């Protein structure tokens, strides 16, 4: 039984260039105003709180300050138009590219481990046989709820040589040059696996169980049902979860920032977004920060669309 429920994948897939109209064309044709009204609040909020600030960020990115003389006293500092200077500086900054390389390695590690675990946990939670599911669900989600303010302290106690319980079992410097990336990835996986698990789990819960019954009657094992039916159903959710995770990884900031006070292996520009933060909040160069963050946004865009293209060709090529 090829059980790929048509209703589930029907109007819904990935954002594709052409709108899909498959079902109930009559309703759609008459319903022109309703969807726009439903979307109006979101669009309004988007415009006010995202589009406008983004526009302002773009504006800032082509500006800079110029001081004269000592730069003290009234009017000594002016804001000027600098054209693409901030962008050329951002693109020509070797440290930024080194940051991209570090993030690439880190990102592959985090994405692979975190998403695999999230999928595994979601499938296990959804399977009928598991005990203590409620407990596991809360436990795995809990790290997402730990506020960042406590992060440096928390990981300091777990990673620093003289305090770490891990060190007592395993003799490795968890914050050394070679290991710090793994330690950092561990924080990201720990914090993110529950979130992604819940996304996938919720998507699974939306599937009427009747889809599986037929397969069960045919004698399919739980593992077979998971791999042959549930994973294909989850595919759109998995893909978009991956896209969001890619974007989040490109913007990695929290984890290295939490570890930075503890070790001298993480520079203030370890990841591109850390450089943005440093420019905007420490050295006060909002203009460079704006330009760099536009570059980051563009790279996230390219990566996520690149990924979408690849999976679309693979997964949806068949039809």
């Amino acid at each position: 039984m090829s059980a790929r429920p048509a209703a589930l994948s029907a109007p819904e897939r990935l954002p594709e260039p052409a709108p899909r109209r498959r079902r109930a064309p009559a309703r759609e044709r008459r319903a022109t105003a309703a969807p726009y009204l439903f979307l109006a609040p979101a669009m309004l909020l988007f415009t006010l709180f995202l589009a406008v600030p983004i526009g302002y960020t773009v504006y800032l990115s082509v500006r800079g300050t110029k001081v004269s003389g000592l730069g003290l006293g009234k009017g000594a500092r002016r804001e000027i138009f600098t054209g693409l200077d901030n962008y050329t500086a951002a693109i020509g900054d070797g440290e930024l590219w080194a940051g991209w390389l570090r993030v690439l390695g880190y990102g592959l590690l985090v994405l692979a481990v975190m998403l695999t675990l999230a999928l595994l946990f979601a499938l296990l939670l959804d399977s009928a046989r598991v005990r203590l599911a409620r407990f596991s669900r809360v436990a795995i989600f809990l790290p997402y709820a730990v506020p960042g303010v406590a992060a440096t302290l928390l990981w300091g106690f777990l990673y620093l040589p003289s305090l770490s319980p891990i060190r007592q079992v395993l003799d490795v410097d968890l914050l050394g040059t070679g290991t710090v990336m793994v330690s950092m990835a561990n924080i990201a996986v720990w914090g993110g696996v529950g979130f992604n698990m819940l996304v996938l789990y919720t998507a699974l819960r939306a599937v009427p169980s009747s889809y599986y019954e037929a397969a069960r009657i045919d004698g399919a094992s739980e593992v077979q049902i998971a791999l042959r039916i549930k994973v294909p159903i989850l595919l759109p959710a998995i893909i978009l979860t991956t896209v969001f995770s890619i974007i989040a990884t490109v913007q990695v900031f929290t984890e290295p920032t939490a570890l930075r006070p503890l070790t001298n292996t993480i520079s203030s520009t370890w990841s591109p977004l850390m450089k943005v933060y440093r420019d905007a909040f420490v050295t006060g160069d909002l203009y460079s920060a704006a330009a760099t963050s536009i570059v980051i946004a563009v790279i996230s865009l390219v990566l996520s669309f690149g990924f979408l293209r690849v999976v679309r060709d693979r997964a949806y090529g068949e039809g």
Partner: protein
Amino acid sequence: MAATTVPGRTAAPRASRAGAVVPTAILLLGALYCLLPVSWVVVAATKSKAELFSTSTFVPGTGLLSNIADLAAYRDGVFWLWLANTVLYAGGGALLSTAVSTVSGYALAKYAFPGRNLIFTVLIGGVLVPAVVLAIPQYLLFSSFGLADTYWSVLLPQILSPYGVYLARIYAAAAVPDALLEAARIDGAGHWLLMRKVALPLMLPGMVTIFLFQFTAIWNNFLLPFIMLGDDAKFPLTVGLYTLLAAGANQPALYNLIITGTLISLVPLVALFLTMQRHWRTDLAGGALKS
């Protein structure tokens, strides 16, 4: 537990005894991995000042009550004010966010209209620009409307959640059968009624997830309230606790209070999670029965 309540799923027969061990073990391992660092917060909150940096990491201390008392007494109980503010920001923000996301996701999933994919892509595209850089422009914007340093300045920007919209779309597509909508429409239901009476009940588990995510995200958001708020009586917990951590170059950080505060701030989140998770048990196959 899900197995006992959802009739369709109890069908899995016999093999379950033996077959349950491995999956349960894997999940428990995952739970352990996630809980271990969290349990440090619990253990550390029990340690007194003298114990925190001197006793072994996972050995409980004797100072929990005095830590809580110190925290409650800190600046005449400003901690509780921060907690109340956080509940307001997270509760209000997450409610509104869930409403906006659900309605948008439903429209995007169940209507085909010109510009659908453009709007979706644009809304989702919001995550591309990092919050770190948006915070300052958002502040300048609010301040030009005279709204900086108000509750609104923290509440409003967190209502739109690209992730929420995306989840709602996926969820509406999966949980709301077109046939059901069509049937209700033929019965004469308008767009609004169709959404409220047919779609929303089916989307409830998804809404719960969105609410939980957004609630937690706002609960833990730091940068936006940090920049927006000057008045410490409007601070949420994250910013408030940060004033204890970064107490200034010449003042010691109040570690015990921060850890205890973190622990207390986890309690409402866990409680919320526990009370809301029963909504995931709703069996969505119900849709088929109706039509």
